[in-house]
């Protein structure tokens, strides 16, 4: 198979998937899809009560054993919990990746897929070929950037689903009132999520978030954009591991989160973290990482590096880790929740804080909002990083193609201009240098894929999409 034919076939496959995603998101009535969704997600045919045979063994086992457990079977919860968390994390990672792929391609293609167009579009073709060129050949077959993105989301997603299963007390769902209590806790999450979403909408510092992303992520990878080098480690965000590192301390059981009433009846919630906490957390992360399959662990190399550095116990390494945590909470989270979240530092102890805003229409549960911030930080950092990184690589690749004299499929000058204009306009939101100014007036973004993208974030996840949609 020659290069040209390979690219044609691969881009056609990607094109078809994007059309399928379009129909899944916009076209089909959700009621009809529900049984199909449940079927694919769990491997269970709801109408017959049977599991499908061609499904992966691991998934079938996870859901079959869960069903038995909830019916009072003798399953071991610890094993089952790991299996469930794995399957749910895997499914959610794939979902996010599908939406990221769709949104990036659609934005670069000027809204071609979200418009549901059937006619062939040469510009969209250029985008598709640029996209599938970010691929490596391995002994197990071709590794696309899409798989790398899914892998990069998996580990932070595991932390999220682990926390979710714990909050919902799934272990007790088979006991008297256990499931009912789980539903009540889910109700609490739903209630908190709505409030938290409003908090993000109202407080986000649009320009600040964009600048932070540029200074702390985009700028660091300038050489990759110049050389157009795509590599797996670059897909993992530098800050996401620190988000996972601090997450567990926000649990009620950790008992570290406390409310303080300040002078003038101002309410503040705070949590203290020192080097020892980071080391304890790194130890737990190490155990978790060791349980991953070799392939998944390979894609979590950056997490391994962070853990090793902290466990080395060197003062410099611990100080650097604390500085990253501070940057993440003070900078990223602080700008998302403009002015409410900050960090103070005393004798090497970080004090992560959240203030109650002066006016709030309903009850303000600062502890719950701090927990929601922490539990979603690694995922939203990872998603923003991927979009920024791959968006920039994509637009650069399309741009270069037009000037590459040897490119057989070189777009014509007029097409190139059109293509670049469309790609840049669409992907501006992922290339933060320009984003700062643009985000202030982002009324021009294509609403279709963007809406899908925004929807991909449960409101439980603080994300940059609040600032991107803010008007």
């Amino acid at each position, binding site marked *: 198979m020659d290069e040209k034919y390979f*690219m044609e076939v691969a881009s056609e496959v990607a094109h078809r*998937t994007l059309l399928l995603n379009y129909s899944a998101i916009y076209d089909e009535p959700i009621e009809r899809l529900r049984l*199909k969704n449940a079927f694919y*997600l769990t491997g269970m045919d709801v109408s017959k009560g049977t599991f499908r045979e061609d499904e992966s063994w691991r998934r079938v086992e996870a859901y079959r054993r869960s069903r038995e457990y909830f019916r009072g079977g003798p399953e071991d919860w610890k094993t089952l919990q790991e299996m469930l968390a794995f399957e749910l994390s895997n499914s959610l990672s794939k979902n996010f990746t599908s939406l990221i792929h769709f949104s990036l391609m659609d934005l670069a293609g000027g809204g071609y897929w979200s418009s549901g167009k059937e006619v062939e579009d040469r510009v969209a073709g250029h985008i598709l070929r640029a996209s599938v060129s970010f*691929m490596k050949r391995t002994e197990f077959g*071709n590794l696309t950037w899409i798989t790398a993105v899914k892998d990069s989301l998996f580990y932070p997603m595991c932390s999220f689903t682990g926390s979710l299963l714990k909050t919902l007390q799934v272990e007790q769902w088979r006991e008297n009132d256990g499931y009912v209590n789980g*539903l009540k806790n*889910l109700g609490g999450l*739903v209630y908190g*999520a709505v409030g938290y979403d409003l908090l993000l909408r109202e407080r986000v510092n649009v320009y600040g978030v964009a600048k932070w992303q540029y200074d702390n992520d985009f700028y660091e990878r300038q050489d990759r954009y110049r050389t157009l080098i795509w590599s797996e480690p670059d897909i993992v965000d530098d800050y996401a591991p620190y988000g996972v590192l601090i997450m567990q301390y926000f649990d009620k059981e950790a008992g570290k989160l406390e409310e303080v009433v300040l002078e003038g009846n101002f309410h503040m919630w705070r949590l203290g973290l020192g080097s020892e906490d980071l080391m304890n957390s790194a130890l737990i992360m190490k155990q978790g990482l060791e349980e991953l399959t070799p392939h998944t662990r390979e894609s979590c190399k950056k997490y391994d590096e962070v853990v090793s550095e902290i466990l080395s116990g060197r003062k410099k390494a611990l100080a650097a880790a604390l500085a990253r945590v501070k940057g993440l909470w003070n900078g990223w989270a602080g700008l998302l929740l403009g002015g409410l979240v900050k960090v103070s530092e005393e004798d090497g102890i970080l004090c992560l804080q959240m203030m109650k805003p002066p006016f709030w229409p309903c009850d303000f549960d600062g502890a719950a909002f701090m927990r929601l911030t922490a539990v979603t930080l690694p995922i939203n950092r990872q998603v923003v990083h991927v979009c920024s990184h791959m968006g920039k690589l994509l637009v650069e690749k399309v741009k270069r193609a037009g000037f590459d004299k040897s490119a057989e499929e070189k777009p014509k000058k007029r097409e190139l201009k059109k293509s670049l204009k469309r790609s840049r306009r669409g992907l501006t939101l992922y290339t933060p240098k320009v984003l700062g100014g643009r985000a202030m007036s982002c009324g021009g973004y294509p609403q279709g894929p963007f809406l899908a993208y925004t929807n991909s974030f449960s409101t439980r996840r603080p994300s940059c999409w609040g600032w991107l949609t803010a008007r």
Partner: protein
Amino acid sequence: MAYGALSNISLALGLEPEIPPDPSDLMELDPVKKVWGRDWSKLKEHPEFSNSLDLLRASARLPVGLLEENYDYLETAIRLLPPPTGSESEVEGL
């Protein structure tokens, strides 16, 4: 999206009562309403929350199973394509 996944799982595993696809309907279930009903009604009275409620509903409605299926289709198809004949580690086809 995680809510939608949980709702689908409850359907597939036959849990009673099922986690409804719309999170607003969850708040109407008896046991949940007892705890959150008052707060939820109060929250709905404030128009500031309407966008957040819409977003929650829309994200819960995303077809999680189908999106996953599409991902699997794309990954499998491209992975199984015979690699091009060149020796570079990255495909240069554009």
